[in-house]
């Protein structure tokens, strides 16, 4: 490098520093020749993401695959429901939004449309909503006709009967054949705060489906009436964690005493099991019948972000990593094989699945519940 070049670079650097974008890492790349060239090629994408995909997107292996495909991500984690409010065009906008769930994704797409943006949605992987529970609880629910064993440490949960039972305010110690869980608390499934989080909204979708005689709600007035009933199931839980992992953290850390039944994403527990190479022997999974798939949705707000969507959906290495994060992908056998090693039992194929109601109906119901919870 000659002196003139040096001076040029210093001048350039000062310019950058003045613009407030100076970092030392700039120099650690010692790429004095290819730097400018590479910057032209690499797509720097700014995105808002849900907690669900944060660990995955920050995984060094994912970063590497994306890097090889000339994509760099600058991501900020926010609540899925808050994302739509942050959609903007132009400089203030993001290249992509990665919320948890179809409902939130539709809201984002809708907000983008209003801001004059054209979006494309991708669903590279998904996870079913499940109830994480405990062996004694599983046996107790089976004994009371509320669940059916579907293999060793796997259960199918009768959502209609369970919802009905919960609304009738039954306590655990009022169940028949109960010697293992002498607890005077009400039978309730614990969720996160429905006003804040997607997973609780999915619980709302399932319980309202049960109350609507096993039909997805499509009529706004009926939805409001049912939401009023379902509100109890949230309100009576008392304090609910209002961050997505709160409920799962309680299941893992405090256990059966606080969360006999925890409504979570399957991938939360699967990822935990794969990461820890095992789970406690009495942890069991219950699959609500029917359940909902939570699709992790990438909403690309421009062509650059569409490249990210294409790679996430098609790259085999990324697919493998997604499974480690507990997600199901198109490759069902790879998923089952990965989980079985941990001692956690899952249902190989989840078939009884419904869609959540439209997001207008969901929004209406959440509004009703919010009002009920203030009383």
């Amino acid at each position, binding site marked *: 490098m000659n002196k003139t070049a040096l001076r040029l670079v210093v001048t350039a650097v000062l310019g950058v520093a003045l613009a407030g974008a100076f970092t*030392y890492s700039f120099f650690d790349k010692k790429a004095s020749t290819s730097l400018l060239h590479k910057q032209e090629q690499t797509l720097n994408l700014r995105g808002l993401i849900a907690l669900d995909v944060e660990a995955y997107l920050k995984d060094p292996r994912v970063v590497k695959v994306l890097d090889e495909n000339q994509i760099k991500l600058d991501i900020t984690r926010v609540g899925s429901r808050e994302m739509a409010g942050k959609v903007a065009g132009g400089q203030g906008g993001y290249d992509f939004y990665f919320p948890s769930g179809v409902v939130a994704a539709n809201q984002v797409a809708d907000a983008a449309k209003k801001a004059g943006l054209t979006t494309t949605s991708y669903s590279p992987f998904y996870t079913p909503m499940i109830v994480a529970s405990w062996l004694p609880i599983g046996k107790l629910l089976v004994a009371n006709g509320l669940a059916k064993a579907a293999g060793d440490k796997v259960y199918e949960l009768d959502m209609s009967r369970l919802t009905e039972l919960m609304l009738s305010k039954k306590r655990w110690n009022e169940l028949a054949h109960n010697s293992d869980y002498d607890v005077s*608390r009400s039978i309730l499934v614990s969720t996160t705060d429905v006003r804040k989080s997607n997973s609780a909204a999915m619980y709302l979708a399932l319980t309202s489906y049960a109350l609507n005689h096993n039909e997805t709600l499509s009529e706004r007035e009926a939805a409001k009436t049912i939401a009023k009933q379902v509100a109890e199931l949230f309100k009576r839980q008392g304090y609910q964690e209002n961050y997505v992992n709160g409920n799962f953290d309680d299941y893992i850390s*405090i256990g059966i*005493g606080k969360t006999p039944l925890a409504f979570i994403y399957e991938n939360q527990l699967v990822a935990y099991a794969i990461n820890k190479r095992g789970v406690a022997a009495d942890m069991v999974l219950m699959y609500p019948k029917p359940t909902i798939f939570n699709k992790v949705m990438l909403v690309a707000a421009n062509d650059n972000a569409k490249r990210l969507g294409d790679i996430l959906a098609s790259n085999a290495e990324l697919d493998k990593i997604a499974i480690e994060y507990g997600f199901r992908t198109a490759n069902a056998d790879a998923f089952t094989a990965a989980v079985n090693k941990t001692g956690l039992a899952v249902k190989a194929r989840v078939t009884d699945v419904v869609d959540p109601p439209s997001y207008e109906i969901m929004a209406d119901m959440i509004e009703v519940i919010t009002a009920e919870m203030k009383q």
Partner: protein
Amino acid sequence: MKRQAMLLKYLVALASCALLLACSEKPAETRADPKSSLSILATSDLKDVQALEKMVQDETGVAIKFTFGGTMESTEKVLKGEANTDAAWFANARYLLSDPAGQARVKLQEKIMLSPLVVGVSTSTAHSLGWDTAPKVTWKDIADAAKDGKLRYTMSNPASSNQGFMAVMGVAAAFANKPEALTLADVNKQRLADFFKGYKLVGDNSTYLTERFIERQGTDLNAFINYESWLLTLNRSGKLKEPLTLIYPHEGVATADYPLLLLNDAKRDAYQKVVAYLKGDKAQHWLAQNTGRRSISPEVMKQEARLFPGSKVLIELPFTTDRAVADALVDAYLNEFRAPIASTFVIDVSGSMNEPGRREGLLEAMHFLSGEDSSLAGRFSRLASRERVWMLPFSNEVQEPTYFEVPQDQAGKTATFQRIGAYADNLKMRGNTRLYDAVLQAINMMAENKRKTPSYLYSVVVFTDGAVNAGANFAAFKSAYANLPAEARAIPVFVVLYAEGNEAELRALADLTHGRAFDAHSMSLVSVFKEIRSYQ
């Protein structure tokens, strides 16, 4: 090439120094990321984790700095956005987070450790109640024992501290007709009143309560309600007359989950590094072994199980989200359930009180006590229904006491508050400082009233601004005090350290009477009086 690259780095470092206008001479140090620090507002029950400052810095490079404060006060600061720290760490944040304003302040949260609120009962008492071998002890058993005078406990003030508040919420839930969705109508007031009959020592600080408990264990106290971690540590300290048997009530307990709350979004990275370290196995083992907190990691917990006597399943009591219920419970505690307060305020009205600001400060504090304050910290500070107050001013002589009793009804309450305000406004400041004669008289007065009405909690509050120059000196006071009957010596004296008051002597006065000294040199008198209230 390499040298040129080095030179380039150096030049750039210099250039950026000039731009930033604030960096040290050594260019290497400009690499220090200013974001790699995290200031944390923590509640005082977390003082035992202060050693983490160094551990976190060593392991993560993030400099964390704790500031400690009272629970309600700290919660209020966060609510109002006045915490001035990057993060907050509380035993629990349920109260804060059931408020939308509180939710908006908190950017991220992660639970770090656990400790259930349990009842520590002197081994001999637990044995005589049959609780040491009973397969289950219920909150009902506890309330019955408290009602019968068999259980005499101390715990932090529910109106001003987390533990006390959680205990009341838990007890209320345990006694509710419905197992959850606690509303005011569901609260079984009689059972709560029974439970509070056993509440014999009030205070706002676990260290203070522990000192008093050590003195009084086996005489008038035999139980301590606090976090399991605190009681385990106390049992290990060897300071108790006999160890405490930890009772985990059958209906359930309230568990503190110690969330670390990010308040300053700009510190996200530092926060996440600190959280990752604190949730890691090394820190989790350290916390379990050194502070008696349960680990959030089931694996670590399994390895440390021997440290926790009640390792059986703990049922968690639901926590109502209804702040109106929480507030009403605290109000009901203050105005109905708790043993009401009877106290004498020994007030210096000597000439020196005319120095700038002093009389005004005192009047402000007295108006505060008899005023309306709906804030979290304020609502327990004002005088409550049933409360009895004697004002005992002194200067050259000890003057006549003036008596007030706060009625239950709102109109009567307001009228009484107005009379107290008018009384304060009419105080005339002149003459000398006849402090100790006044204190002695106040103690005797309280002891005499205690004989007549033992259901009240008696104390003396002393406020003086100068050296004693009339009547008994401290030595004379001490010898007179030594000759007082035991019941008079059981009256604690809470002392305000203010202006030229003799600090050493006044602290000795607080110690002698098992009271406590409160420093008003660096705080307003209002704040000090607020603090005293949670010890009465």
